[in-house]
Structure formats: C-alpha cells, structure tokens
C-alpha cells in the first residue's frame, strides 16, 4: 500500500489508532541492550507461548509488545504494563506465568517485582513516579521503550511522520531551516554546532548533488544513547533525515552505523524497507515532489570514523583518515559535494521541533543550550541506564536524584563526560549546570552524552592512562602529533602508574599535551590530551602520590599496591580458586594467606571476596 498523499496518511493514522484502541492492556517488554543481557528475549518468548495456549479476556498475543530501551537498565529485565504503568523490574522467565495469572487476569499487583527505593524503602507501583523517571523529560527518546521498533504502525500511531506531512503541506525549505535555527538546536554529537546554521550553509552551496548523512558511529566508550534510539525508534531518525533532505535539497542519504551495533542495523534496515514500501522514502514522498532515499553504511570498527571527514571517506568505501578542514565538509563533504552530517539524537529532535514549533523547543533548557540531552549513566552509580533531561540540570541532580548516588554508598570521586575527548570533573563541580558551554569552560565537554561515574576506588592516573591507550590504538596515524605525541604521552603516563616518574615527567606531559592539541589534524588529536589535562588539573595530589610516594591512593595501579587478607577471612576459598598465580594458600574455614612474591596483583581475589576480607595496602 503506497501512502501517496497527506490525506491518506492521516486516514491511515486514524485507522491504526482505532485498531490499537481495541487492545486495552499492553505489556511492554524491554529488549534494550541491558535487559537483553538479562534474558528479556526469553521472557518475551514465554509470554507469547503461554498466551497462545491460554485464552484470557481482553488479553492476546497482540497485547505483548517488544520495545527498545526503557531506560532503567540497572533494574532490568523490565516488564511494563500499560495503561496503568505498572513497573516490574528484575523479571525472570519463571515470573511470567505469575504475571499473566495475577496481574493480567485478576488485576493484582505482584509486590516483589515492584521497584523499592533502597534509601526510603518506598515501593513504587507506577514507573512515572519513580524518582529515576520523574525528573526526566523525553523528546529525542519519546518513543524509545514505548513502541515496537519493527512496527511502522506504532510510530505512526504516536504521531510519526506528521512533521513530514506538515512541511510538505505548507512550509518552504527556507522556513524549515528557519524553524530549526530558531529552536536553538545544537549538534548532539558533542561539538554543539548550530544545526540550523549547518543546514543553511549546505542549502546555499551551489554544487550538486547534496547529501544528508547521519552519524551513528557512537564510538565514545561509555555512551549508548544513539544505539538505543537507532534500535528503539529507527523511524524518527529517518523522519529527521527526510525533513533535512527537504530543507537542503538532497536526494541521497546515508546512515553510518558502527559494526558493534548489529541490532541497530537490522532495525534501521527494517524501517527503511517499510518506509519505502509505504512511499515515505523514494520518489515523490507522500505524493509531493520530494524524492529522497537512505542507505545504511556499516563501519569497520574505527573510532576515528566518528570524525566528519573520516566518516565521509569511510562511506565512500575508503579508509577513514580525516583531512584538514580548510574547506568545511558541509561545502565539500561526501564525494566532495555539499553534505549535512548530523548525529542520531539531533535528527531524533527534528520531527518534534517541526511539530511543536521552535519557540516551544527553545523554552526548554538554557538560553544557549536549548532542549534536552540524552545521557547514558554508567560506572559506579546505582541507577545505571539511559536518561533524557533538560539542559541546565546540575550534575548533582543527575547523579544523586536520578542516578540514586554511588554504588555501595561509597564516596563520589569524579564523573567522566564526553568520552576520550572530554574530561573528569571532581566533587566540587557537582553543582555545575550541564550545558555545552559550562562543561567546556570547566575542562570537560558535553560530548555525545556518556557519563561514567567513579568512586574512591578509582585511580585517576589509571583513568588517564586508559583513555590515552584507547587513543593511541585509535589514532589513524596520518599526522605526527597525534600518532607520536599520544604514544609518548601514554608512555609517560605508564611511567607514573609504575611509580617511576619524577616531577619533570609531569611537566613534560603538560608541555607535550599543549603541542599535540595545537598541531593535530583532527578532533581526535586536538582533544586527545583532555583526559590527562583534566585529571591532573583536579587530581594533582593523586599524580603526586604516584610520583613522590610511589603510592596509588585509589588502590588500582598494580606496581604500587599489595593485597593482604585480614582477620575477617572465613576461609570460603573463593579467592583461592580464582587466583591464577597460585599465590593464595589456606584450608577451608581457615584464614587464607597471600604470597606477596607470587602475587601478580590482578585483583581477582579482591573482586570475588564478599566479606571485605582483603585489604589493599
């Protein structure tokens, strides 16, 4: 069925909504990456199997919906029952029969599966009331976790493609660009460049053809927002791109997805196929003059391909080495033609901006950073997961109010934002507003939205080494400052971790960092030393402890610590079994001993000990 006019689209939407109204109860099963690792696919199967055999009034297999990431990964696998919003967490396959019998059949709540706040012990029945959700505002993630990503009808029922209809009905391309500019939307990939200005520059370029690209190469370790959007709501990415194509006058688009996200590729491809089938992609979209099609281009596992010019080379089938940007890629991009490249989350915002208007969007967030931002919360934080909050919220609100504070009630040490190009912010920066400019002013950056929380058992020198090691491996090698400079910087960092560095080495590292930043070709090198610079700026005492006292305060750097078993040891033998160096001796129920000479300080014993009987000295 081709939907070749806006009238038909609206009619179709009404039909879908009527059909969906007939299904009173909907059971949403989260198949996001976190819940999937907890076996939510098995839960989905179990629901379907039981409901095929059993006849229940008002409930059928059609009531069971798989969705993308619902957000609260720490409590996964999640099962949500709408319209009541009943929130079941940590669900296992064995609970499915009980949920069907008690909740779906008799309307009873199963209390043991509800969320209980560990601090207040308050039990929450409805997900919207849980503090983790209550503080959020979802725009880009509006459908993620609410709809079945495979069903175009779900997207349309939720208002999908109505923004596209709106522009085709009565907006000129210039008006679309004007709206996007006025909304104040800034690129969600990290740099924060005005999306409207980018589109305007491309639209003004005289060369043809023009391309529309989507950057789904979410390479920052610790970030998974784009993954969840591509997997959980692929049509919103397509709609955003089609609107962009209309605005800048493009016929051809590509979504570049990193190969580590196979499910994103599958879901996007299904969405593209469906959109083509219904006439939302291809020639004469919705019966208009707009012709635009999208293809998926898979990455090959190179972090540098998230950089615009490298990404464009990779889409063209070449190796992804960046080029110097004397001429911006918006003018000479893919195949040297004008190209708009936006991040997944940026595109996901577009349909809402068009529909609700630029003023509405600009009223959210701060003056210079409008709208919301999606973040992935990870690391040593209680409520790990995917969130979306208005810009201008403080780090403290994100980490404590939404994130529930630090694991095991340990002390907060730092939060890492912005991936390898960003930095670490300490406790006294917790009250900073989260927006593009404030984070950059304080030595970190917004980045794509990864937020990794660290507690007092994290060594900041080791964190810096980790990122430098990452960048050394991922540097494409084209320019010397990045290839050689980062390598040397990493070597020096390693020396600090081993306790073999002197004061001069720290000075040398700072000098070298400045050189790398000022002379590298692309963003990878230019921001490469950030993790080092931000950690030494805020945690100089830790560096000095490594250099002057040969001590690692975080208890991480292997060369500077010793493991010792204390008197709390009950002889459970867990550490003995896990010790690869055979350094632990002891009998069952008797205190064990570590042979410090044999011990290679891998830390496995410390990790498996359940009663804190191992000290790090």
């Amino acid at each position, binding site marked *: 069925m081709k939907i070749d006019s806006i009238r038909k689209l609206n009619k179709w939407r009404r039909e879908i909504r009527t059909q969906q109204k007939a299904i009173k109860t909907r059971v949403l099963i989260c198949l996001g990456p976190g819940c999937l690792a907890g076996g939510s696919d098995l839960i989905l199967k179990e629901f379907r199997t039981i409901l095929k055999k059993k006849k229940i009034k008002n409930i059928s297999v059609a009531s069971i919906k798989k969705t993308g990431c619902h957000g609260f990964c720490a409590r996964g696998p999640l099962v949500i029952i709408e319209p009541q919003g009943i929130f079941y967490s940590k669900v296992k396959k064995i609970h499915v029969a009980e949920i069907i019998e008690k909740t779906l059949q008799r309307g009873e709540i199963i209390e043991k599966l509800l969320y209980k706040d560990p601090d207040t012990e308050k039990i929450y029945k409805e997900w919207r009331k849980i503090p983790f959700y209550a503080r959020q505002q979802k725009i880009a993630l509006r459908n993620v976790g609410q709809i079945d990503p495979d069903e175009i009808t779900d997207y349309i029922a939720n208002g999908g493609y109505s923004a596209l209809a709106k522009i085709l009905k009565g907006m000129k391309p210039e008006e679309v660009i004007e709206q996007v500019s006025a909304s104040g939307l800034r690129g969600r990939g990290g740099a924060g460049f005005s999306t409207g200005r980018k589109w305007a520059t491309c639209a003004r370029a005289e060369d043809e053809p023009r391309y529309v690209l989507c950057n789904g190469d979410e390479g920052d370790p610790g970030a998974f927002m784009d993954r969840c959007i591509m997997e959980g709501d692929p049509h919103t990415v397509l709609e955003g791109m089609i609107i962009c194509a209309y605005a800048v006058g493009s016929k051809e688009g590509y979504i570049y997805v990193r190969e580590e996200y196979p499910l994103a590729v599958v879901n996007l491809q299904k969405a593209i196929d469906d959109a083509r089938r219904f006439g939302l992609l291809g020639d004469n979209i919705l019966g208009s003059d707009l012709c635009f099609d999208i293809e998926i281009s898979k990455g090959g596992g190179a972090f540098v391909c998230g950089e615009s010019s490298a990404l464009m080379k990779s889409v063209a089938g070449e190796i992804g080495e960046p080029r110097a940007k004397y001429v911006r890629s918006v003018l000479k991009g893919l195949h040297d033609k004008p190209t708009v490249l936006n991040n997944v989350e940026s595109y996901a915002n577009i349909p809402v901006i068009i529909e609700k208007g630029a003023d509405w969007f600009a009223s959210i967030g701060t003056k210079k950073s409008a709208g919301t931002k999606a973040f992935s919360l990870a690391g040593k934080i209680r409520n790990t997961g995917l969130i979306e909050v208005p810009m201008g919220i403080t780090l403290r609100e994100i980490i404590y109010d939404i994130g529930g504070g630090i694991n095991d009630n340990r002390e907060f040490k730092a939060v890492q934002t912005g991936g390898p190009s960003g930095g670490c912010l300490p406790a006294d920066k917790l009250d900073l507003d989260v927006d593009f400019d404030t984070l950059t002013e304080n030595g970190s950056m917004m980045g794509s939205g990864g937020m990794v929380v660290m507690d007092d058992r994290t060594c900041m020198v080791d964190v810096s080494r980790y*990122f430098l090691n990452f960048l050394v491996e991922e540097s494409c090698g084209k320019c010397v400052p990045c290839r050689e400079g980062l390598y040397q910087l990493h070597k020096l960092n390693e020396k600090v971790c081993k306790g073999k560095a002197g004061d001069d080495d720290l000075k040398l590292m700072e000098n070298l960092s400045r050189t790398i930043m000022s002379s590298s070709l692309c963003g990878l090198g230019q921001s490469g030393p950030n993790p080092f610079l931000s950690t030494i700026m805020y945690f100089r005492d830790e560096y000095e402890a490594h250099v002057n006292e040969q001590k690692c305060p975080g208890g991480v750097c292997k060369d500077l610590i010793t493991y010792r078993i204390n008197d709390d040891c009950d002889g459970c033998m867990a550490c003995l079994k896990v010790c*690869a160096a055979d350094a632990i001796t002891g009998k069952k129920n008797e205190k064990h001993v570590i042979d410090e000479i044999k011990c290679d300080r891998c830390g496995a014993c410390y990790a*498996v000990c359940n009663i804190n009987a191992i000290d790090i000295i």
Partner: protein
Amino acid sequence: MIIDSKKIQRVIDRLPPDKKQLIMILQDIQQEFHYLPKESVRLVADYLGMPQSAVYSAATFYKSFSLIPRGENIIKVCKGTACHIKGADLIIDQLDSGLGIKPGETTKDLKYTVEVVNCVGACAMAPVMIVNDKYFGEVRCNRAIKIAKKG
C-alpha cells in the same frame, strides 16, 4: 585451513562491483569465514578494479577485519570506560589463565578467540562479555571461563 576461492567469489558477488562497496564486501567475507583469507584480497581487488594494496590497506585499517584465522567461538571482552573501571582487566586475566590466550590470540585447536573491543554500548551492565554475539552482563571474574566455554 584452505578455503576454496570459488566460495570466496560467491560471497563477493553478492554486492555490485562498486568501489564504495569495498568495506561492505570485506565485512561479508569476514562474517562468512570469520577472517579474510589471503586469497580474498586479490579477488576483491580484481572485482572492484583497484590495486591489491588499497584492499590490504582497508583490511588492516579497520579493526573488525582479521587476516589470520579466528576460532569457532569468538569471545569479546568489552573495554569501554564503564567496563574498565568495573574490572574488565580481571576478566581478561582469567581468560588468559584459563584458555592460555591473550586478547587477539586464538587457541591452537581453533576453538576460541579472545578479543578486546571498545565499548559495545551495554555500559549499564558493565563489565560485559560477548560470546558469539550473546551478551553477558555484570560478569564476575570467577565466572568468566565458564561463560566463555558454555556461551
């Protein structure tokens, strides 16, 4: 291990002979054989009408390609930031002592390959291990070998 070049050619033929398909073709070969057999570099170069050096360059630039045979079971350990601070190194150490291979290596019987990957985007479940595309979250190091072997 000798792989019939006709078999490789059949995989190559799935996509049109267009230079921009280079990476996609290599990905298809990699998926089929778990690595890029030596012969495939020449075959792809001929198919796309480009020098072998250009194909080789792409094959070595992108991390997802391997020019040496990999094991039947691919064990990936995520080393994203969250996994790193939650003890991904412990998992790598345990796999080393249990299987006798370091990241990037394959057991002699070609049964297991251990790889370290940069962030797989399942940070909320850190540390994460992936065995043959199945995700395992919150892996405690003493369970690493069991997970690797059973999948």
